[in-house]
């Protein structure tokens, strides 16, 4: 029996995925009080093939804790999953901790998924961090070749930035994982 086919989350995804009626189950503030590790503010801007902001998009993050661990044996002060709807400028912003290296995972990274009107199947990507020496040997970054930089966040003031380009010049490497 094959997987149920995907359909776009559409322009009104906020109703179900951020629960505009009641309290959201999953938010963009993942780092609770006392969370271990280095605080991370991750921002990014999503643009389309003409450089226009994807203002109705939504990004999910899923990551290990600062020690590279996952529930149920990880830091309870961290919500490992986060969601952020883009603002009018196409920008998302997560408050989390910098992920540690999970065993067997290559360089430290977070997984991300992107949903929007006009996206028939949610787009998978990952967020790595510039300057991590393990990036050089990471199997995914090696496979991405000269486009690997599209998956590597860079310092931007006190935050880190990973912009996402859906189409065309500088197009992000999306994954079939």
């Amino acid at each position, binding site marked *: *029996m*094959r*997987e*149920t*086919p*995907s*359909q*776009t*989350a*559409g*322009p*009104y995804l906020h*109703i*179900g*995925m951020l629960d*505009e*009626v*009641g309290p959201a*189950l999953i938010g963009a503030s993942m780092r609770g009080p006392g969370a271990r590790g280095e605080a991370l503010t991750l921002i990014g801007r999503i643009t*389309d*093939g*003409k450089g*226009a902001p*994807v203002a109705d998009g939504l990004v*999910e993050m*899923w*990551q*290990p804790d600062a020690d590279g661990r*996952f*529930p*149920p044996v990880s830091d309870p002060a961290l919500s490992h*999953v986060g969601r952020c709807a883009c603002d009018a400028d196409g920008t998302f912003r997560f408050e989390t901790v910098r992920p540690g290296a*999970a*065993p*067997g*995972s290559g360089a430290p*990274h977070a*997984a991300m*998924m992107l949903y*929007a009107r*006009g*996206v*028939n*199947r949610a*787009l*998978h990507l990952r967020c790595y961090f510039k300057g991590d020496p393990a990036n050089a040997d990471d*199997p*995914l970054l090696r*496979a*991405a070749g000269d*486009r690997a930089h599209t998956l590597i966040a860079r310092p931007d003031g006190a935050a880190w930035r990973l912009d996402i380009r*859906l*189409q065309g010049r500088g*197009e*992000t*490497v*999306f*994954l*079939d*994982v």
Partner: protein
Amino acid sequence: MTTPLRPRRSGWHPPALTPAYRSTRLRAPTQAPLALPSAPVELRGPVFGHADLGPLDGDLHLNAAADGQSAIGPRILVHGQVTDEDRRPVPHTLIEIWQANAGGRYRHKRDGYLAPLDPNFGGCGRALADADGRYAFRSIQPGPYPWPNGGNDWRPAHIHLSLFGHAFAQRLVTQLYFEGDPLMAHCPILNAVPSEAGRARLVARLDLARTEPMDTVAWRFDIVLRGAAQTPFETRPEGP
């Protein structure tokens, strides 16, 4: 879950670019996705439980209604089973639900359709599958609505569903349609699914046996998430 997942078959899901659905034209990546085995991060996923749900989350008749009131529209029960590709139940998975009201209007600041809002309908709910992967929620049948796609375009009645499964790489967001809706044949979003067999999997079937007499019509909608790779041959080799 930390076992490898079966690779996705090409030609089954909608491709990124389906020009008849106009919004894909500037949002579809031009490069093929980079295929490689899921890493530990994608083979795990968030776990949800009953404590994450409110008592009325699965009852869209009531969960946004004033005391003693109820949403307007045909009363429906949607139910089914969540399994993987080997028909094994996927227990305790979270299902998020959103939809338009009976007039085809979403409670959303960007929806300006002239059909009125229903003050007693939010259009948002959640359900948690049981130990056998079975789920159910109550709602009203959503209405069809026009949408800007360059012509005279109408969405068939549909309900949006988001499922987590047990691994981030099992995540599925899709839409449920209703058997017999003549607008389905004209919908570029549904028709982005390449095959008739694939489109049929998005159509809920009338389930007379579960219908509650003098109360609620039942629709059956089974959902299949990616399964584990069964043999070493199904585990994709390293690299692009």
